[in-house]
């Protein structure tokens, strides 16, 4: 039993180790050039060596991703609440929301620079544009799926629209909101990196472009791993928050899972 528990928790980790080992072996066996595909060990040591240089880049990306994520999520929540409270507006606006996600960011980003310059604003717009959508859609679903029997009780007791929203619909949709936040959190890092390609003084995106144009493939991979790590970390923080805030839901799910 204990062995199985460890296997279940550690499985992704073991798989990752296995993949890295295979990668390492492949570069040795076929003698692949470092600028074409560096071995994981090479990437690792390059990462350690340039830690000093990377730290500054890392911090500015974290700052950018975090502020973009916060702004985007707030916008997403506000949009969801507005569309929920005014169903007439929803019919008109919802298709536009979906269209907003079809704009290729790569094309939009340079335009934003032309309109707003090289400052924070165009970058925050890019990240917010990526981040608001999952939060808006998930929250809207959560609000909409409030059980009818609970709504009925509230109405029979004479609850107004405001009480219905704050005391019933919003708390009910919190688990859904968190699903949206988790997706947005991982997107925010990618959004930040892309927006840094537009031109920034520092950031993982800047580091990446420099490395790529200098054919320092090892550094490109360092950047990739950092981005992955950051995404995981953001995801983890949101999950932790969720665990604390919606403990009732987790206990309820466990009870259902145990067949009761």
């Amino acid at each position: 039993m204990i062995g199985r528990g460890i296997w279940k928790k550690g499985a992704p980790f073991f798989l990752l180790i296995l993949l890295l080992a295979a990668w390492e072996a492949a570069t040795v066996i076929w003698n692949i050039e470092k600028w074409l595909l560096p071995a994981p060990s090479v990437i690792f040591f390059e990462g350690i060596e340039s830690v000093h240089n990377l730290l500054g880049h890392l911090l500015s990306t974290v700052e950018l991703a975090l502020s973009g994520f916060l702004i985007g999520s707030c916008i997403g929540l506000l949009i969801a609440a507005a569309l929920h409270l005014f169903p007439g507006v929803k019919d008109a606006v919802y298709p536009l929301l979906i269209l907003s996600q079809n704009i290729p960011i790569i094309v939009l980003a340079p335009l934003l620079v032309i309109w707003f310059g090289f400052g924070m604003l165009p970058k925050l717009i890019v990240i917010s544009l990526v981040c608001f959508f999952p939060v808006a859609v998930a929250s809207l679903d959560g609000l909409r799926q409030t059980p009818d029997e609970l709504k009925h009780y509230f109405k029979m007791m004479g609850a107004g629209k405001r009480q219905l929203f704050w005391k019933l619909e919003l708390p009910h949709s919190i688990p859904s909101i968190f699903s949206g936040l988790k997706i947005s959190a991982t997107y925010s890092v990618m959004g930040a990196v892309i927006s840094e390609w537009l031109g920034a003084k520092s950031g993982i995106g800047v580091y990446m472009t420099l490395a790529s144009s200098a054919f320092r493939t090892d550094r490109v991979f360092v950047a990739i791993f950092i981005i992955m790590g950051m995404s995981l970390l953001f995801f983890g923080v949101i999950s932790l928050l969720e665990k604390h805030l919606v403990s009732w839901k987790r206990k309820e799910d466990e009870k259902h899972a145990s067949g009761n």
Partner: protein
Amino acid sequence: MHLEIKDVSYSFDGKRNILEKLNFHVNEGEFVTILGPSGSGKSTLFHLTGGILKPDHGDILLDGKNINGLKGHISYMPQQPSLLPWRTVLENVLLGSELAGMKDKERAKSLLKKAGLGEYERAYPHELSGGMKQRAAFIRSILSPQDLMCLDEPFSALDEMTRVQMQKWLMSFWEEYRRSVLFVTHSIDEAIFLSDRIYVLSSKPASVIKEVVVPFPRPRREDQLLSDEFIHLKRKLYAALKPN
């Protein structure tokens, strides 16, 4: 508190009436049951009293004041317990009074204790059994400040054993507090055991076809359920309910 339903008619489509010229009343501190077959418009009647729907004809009078289409004048207990899963039992039973803008935590705690839910104050609804959930829902409606309590088939989703227990529990609780109650059910036994008076509804359209005063003294006891008088009353109600 005195509720009077006067000549109330209602239809969903403007043609076929669901309720037709309904007349009945509930006196102060009285337990009145509306007994009717399934689909006879009992729920519609509650929606009208709760103000979610507005009667096409007639008046709903609470202490002489017309409350047609006005919400917030009754305390409601639905068929499903409808407790909020993210609130503890204590926060849940306070919800009704909270919606009306007043909370009395101490009273809630003492009532929970009396209902045998004292240890579950901080528990979440999913940790309770079906009967316990309904008890919590009942405490919630007692704590709501409105004078009239409307109970909509509150025990119909419970199994037989739990239901009988809940009826006894409800009786002992109610006999102590004596709020005016309008109770809806399709169970004849339940109606006789709990009520002071019973109105029998016809189905489609619903109107009152019989009014019966239940003669048993209070506090009610389980052995009354087997007395000749009880069987006699049951037979009478059964005959009235039978479709012609």
